[in-house]
């Protein structure tokens, strides 16, 4: 991170798409930082009602696809900084697109 503290999400978030989003002020168990000039994206997906992590959520970032593990965690690594389309889909939940 540039300032070493805060995650910098340029969120042109069209909030209210059925998801609750929050940006951690301090990364916990953060993955190793990417090489200089590169970016990564990671986070955790939880159930908005119960707060429990959701595994098997398909997370798509400009066509790159990963699934959350049983702890609800996902990560994209070695990315170019810049704008992306991000989508979270899981049967039984409202799909969220940024």
């Amino acid at each position, binding site marked *: *991170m*540039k300032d070493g503290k805060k*995650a*910098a*999400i*340029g*969120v*042109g*978030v*069209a909030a209210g798409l*059925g*998801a*609750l*989003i*929050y*940006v*951690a002020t301090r*990364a916990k168990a*953060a*993955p190793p*930082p*990417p090489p*200089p*000039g*590169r*970016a*990564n*994206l*990671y*986070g*955790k*997906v*939880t*159930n*908005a*009602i119960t*707060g429990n992590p*959701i595994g098997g*959520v398909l997370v798509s970032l*400009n066509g790159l696809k990963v699934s959350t593990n049983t702890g609800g965690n996902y990560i994209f690594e070695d*990315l*170019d*900084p*810049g*704008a*992306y*389309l*991000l989508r*979270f889909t*899981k049967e*039984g*939940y*409202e799909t*969220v697109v*940024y």
Partner: protein
Amino acid sequence: MGDIVLVEGSNQLNIALIPIAAEEEALIYESMSTSTTGKFTLGQTTMVKVQVRNPNDVAVEEVVEISGIGFSELSDNPITITIGGNSVNVARFNIIYDAIGTYTIYCEDLSTTVEIVQGEEVPGLGGIFLVGPGEFYELRDTYGTVYGTAEVTPSNCCFYGTTFGGQTCRNAGTFDYDVWVGYLRNNAAEPDAIYSGEYQWSQMLGHYYNWQASGLSLDAFKAAHPNWDILGGMEMWFLSRIPAYCPFTYS
């Protein structure tokens, strides 16, 4: 071009997904049946069963109601039943057929058609009569059993084929017997009257329906109408015992 911008370094985005509420599926009314089949005898009691399936995972309460004509309910209608998740339950209604004809009983999208006919048993002379005096009525069966509190005597009881007060009890309608109603109490000048069985039957049912619609218990009804004590009790008895004793069945 997207809506999030990743900067150099680590970017974190936690998100909470909102679950989609599962839609409750409609209950399925699977079947309706009667405890016996075929033709029914007037005054016969039977049980109507309605089976309902709950396709949902959670138990639900359902109000089940039957409708139609040609019968009266002897038990609650509607009935509230609890149906467990992904299971069935049966609502049971006790009814009595009270009119000759072909009728349909309905429940939601289900229906069953019944044919109600006259009973085959024809009693001997005597039968059951409604007798006076006054607003009090009594019932006496073929065997001489008196139901009610007022004594029935030859002077105020009329048998089929005999005469009383210059009139002959007759079979004027589809009842095998007509019903003789004694003179009114406190009005000795009131001429004796012979009513058709159909008329008296309709009167009886009318009283019963009124009582039933009042929502009162029988005790409360009696308390409110002390002069109707015997009548109220008789009506209940009448409807409940007719299947076994009624000789003036429709023809």
